[in-house]
């Protein structure tokens, strides 16, 4: 067991981890931040995406000890300071971009990273960026609409 410290959603945290403890396990079981989900065991589904030092990362695929000292942001840290939904979260609600909600944290984190890099993506760029996030419920239509809306562009199609 080793002691790790990092910043999660702006707060310093620390805990004991094994060498094999994944970041997602540390977040969910160590810190009780269960908004980050696990949907697969092959690094394919993206339900576990968080930001590490501003970059989207599949938290099922990095060891907790490897991000020691980093700044991690999870879905729990995405709302506005007053607790209201952030722009992208609000766009997901407005456009019905979620059904069961299981893929949603990963979708939001992944899309947020896209918009940070590329504030005005095309529809094709959004779809391409989300290749690593699987949703079984929405057929992606409303997710893509939500991301395009949040980017401040008019939505390309109904």
């Amino acid at each position, binding site marked *: 067991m080793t002691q790790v410290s990092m910043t999660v959603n702006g707060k310093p945290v620390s805990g004991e981890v094994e060498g094999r403890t994944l970041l997602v396990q540390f977040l969910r079981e160590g810190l009780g931040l269960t908004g980050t989900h696990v949907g697969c065991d092959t690094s394919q589904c993206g339900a576990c995406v968080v930001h590490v030092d501003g970059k989207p990362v599949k938290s099922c695929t990095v060891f907790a000890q490897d991000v020691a000292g980093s700044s991690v942001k999870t879905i729990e840290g995405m709302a506005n300071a007053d607790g209201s939904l952030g722009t992208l979260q609000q766009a997901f609600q407005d456009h019905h971009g979620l*059904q069961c909600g299981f893929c949603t944290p990963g979708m939001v984190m992944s899309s947020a990273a896209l918009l940070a890099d590329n504030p005005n993506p095309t529809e094709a760029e959004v779809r391409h960026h989300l290749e690593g996030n699987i949703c079984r419920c929405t057929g992606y239509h409303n997710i893509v609409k939500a991301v395009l809306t949040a980017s401040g562009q008019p939505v390309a199609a109904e």
Partner: protein
Amino acid sequence: MPKDYGIGASSKRREDVRFLTGRGVYTDDMALHGQTYAVFVRSTVAHGRIRSVGTEAASKMPGVLAIFTGEDFKDVGGNPAGWLINSRDGTPMHEPKRPVLAHGKVRHVGDAYAAVIAETYQQAKDAAQQISDDTDIEELPAIVDMRAALADSSNRVHDEIPDNQCYDWGWIEDNRAAVDAAFKSAPHVTTLELVNNRLVPNAMEPRASIGEYFPGTGDYKLTTTSQNPHLTRLLVAAFVLGIPENKLTVVAPDVGGGFGSKIYHYGEEALVLAAAKKLARPVRWTAERSESFLSDAHGRDHVTKIELACDKEGNFLAFRTETMANVGAYLSNFATVTPTFLHGTLMAGPYKVPHVYVNVKTVFTNTAPVDAYRGAGRPEATYSLERVIDKMCRELGLDPFEVRRKNFLTTDMFPYTTPVGLVYDTGNYHATLDKAMEMADVAGFAKRRADSAARGKLRGMGLSTWIEACGIAPSNLVGILGARVGLYDAATVRVNATGNISVMVGAHSHGQGHETVFAQIAAEKLGIPESSVEIVHGDTSKIPFGMGSYGSRSLAVCGVAMTKAIDKIVAKGKKIAAHMLEAAEGDITFEDGKFSVAGTDKAKTFGEIAFSAYVPHNYPLETLEPGLEETAFYDPANFTYPAGAYICEVEVDEGTGKVDVVAFHCADDFGNVMNPMIVEGQVHGGVGQGIGQALLESTTYDENGQLLTGSYMDYAMPRAGDVPFYNVDYSCQTACTHNVLGVKGCGEAGAIGSPPAVVNAVLDALHSGGHKIAHIDMPVSPGRVWQAING
């Protein structure tokens, strides 16, 4: 102006806020004091005789608390099949026991034969590996192919079932001779042999269960990823573990999708309960995705020959279907009804065809159990019909739009009894086809095809006109057909003293948005704000009863139960108002949240009535009970029959065989629509899954019964880049005639209607390029298309 409140409004979903902020509570999110971890030991061979299960070394490993094997459950009940289907000769189906843990034999890769409980997940995992290493299983030849399974009596999935056949079902057997005669004399017969590919449902939340036992009271609690907690309670309590039903609570909290796979009771649920009792500690289990692939109930998997008899103008004379349906190694709860009554009864489609006959042989194989997956039987029926119709059109040089049109039932024909035993109450198939053609700009297709050609692509357009039977189901009818349960639903409306209400519903939401839509309906009926209504679901200790959500039944059955309970609340409210306003009960009217004495300005608000019900000073107690809470059960009089027309356009790259869906248009008739935003979302999701089936998803077992597509690296799930924006319309509305909401159900539509539209479009594209290809099986992968083009 679109409505902004109540029925018909696109109210935003209240559940979204918790999901968007990471505060949903799914089963695996719960942490319990003293919890322990279960890991299952699963067969690595498809078929084998268990010589010994090696528990000795594992039992001494660190943290191991208990080990269970098939031996521990051999005297408890099996997980039963929900429907008894009889063969054509009247003999009942074969129904092998499905044990909690495999005993004697393992029958598919992933069949669990032992479970370890340990202090930590890693300890349980390590011990499970040890058991696997120390276990001796004699491998037997795997039975994978259905035809071979039926032909070879020497190799059996279940030793007591000689030809691996569950049943040989005919529908309707008495009509067979007339159907055969119609084929004999028909001017034209088109035959098509096809495969409806096996799919893995892949709800994004893997299955998970937590068992708890409370020694002080002898109560059990199961928290589980279920679409219908009451059915799970019944099966675990009464059939498998023999727990009194009133000693078991089943909770299905936030559930991350189901699509059928979470309807059923699975052995893991019984195991965590039995283990929790033994250890008097909570026992939790969450499937890894690899386990989901191996052990969740799969869907579809039909091998079908369909024949269509018609005259030279394309008027349908008869349909005849022969299907082999794979049920896998054991009968999952709805496995026997899916290929029969959910498939055969739909084989008339929306058409006026006089003669229809369906034969289904259901086969055991050494593969994961197969059961209902979004649409369940109805996609298989629609796919066969819509594909063979297009093939006939090509053979006779007829226009596929016109052929559907001339064979459609017309609005003056309802109620209409089909030759396969359903009574369609209402519909307007011409309207949805007209709408779809307008949306798709069919007239402009030639120009789009030319544009595609200029970019080196073959463009094709494909049509599918679909119908389904949902709102499952009238108990008296399904009882005659072999169902072992009723399929009503229930709701309790509790008006609290302060005037807000809690509605406990038997339907379960795992993405459908019930918390929002049911509240819209209740709010409108009672004339109170939506925010005053709270919907409670998924907990057998809170809700009266329920049969859960599947078969597009939530609104059409449970929504109607809630409406009936609300009617009772209003009736009781009138009694209270009559007392308070010193008027006759018959003079009280209820409108916009107010009880009034007709023709006067004397009135009481809903809130005043509620308060008085709980502060009943001066009540005439002999005639008026305090309190305001009502329950209603509703059993539908008939199925509901949504229908629609789907038009797909694809571009095919002749060089690579890659197919791109470039446009998808849906014109559906769902009857009345409660929340348009949610209805559209349901169609999007269904079409996304249908495109997945048509182009991407293949569940492949090799000849040894090893699943070759057991992860997201091998099983091609549709991703954002594989699908277009969908063009969805639901304006053609013929209200269901036998439920008060006039609703039909929209959850399965997309998955039913879309696969044939996609494949028909691909074939249309190929023909336009001079490739005279009659058929390609799904998934229509680049490899298959390329092969078809290049021989």
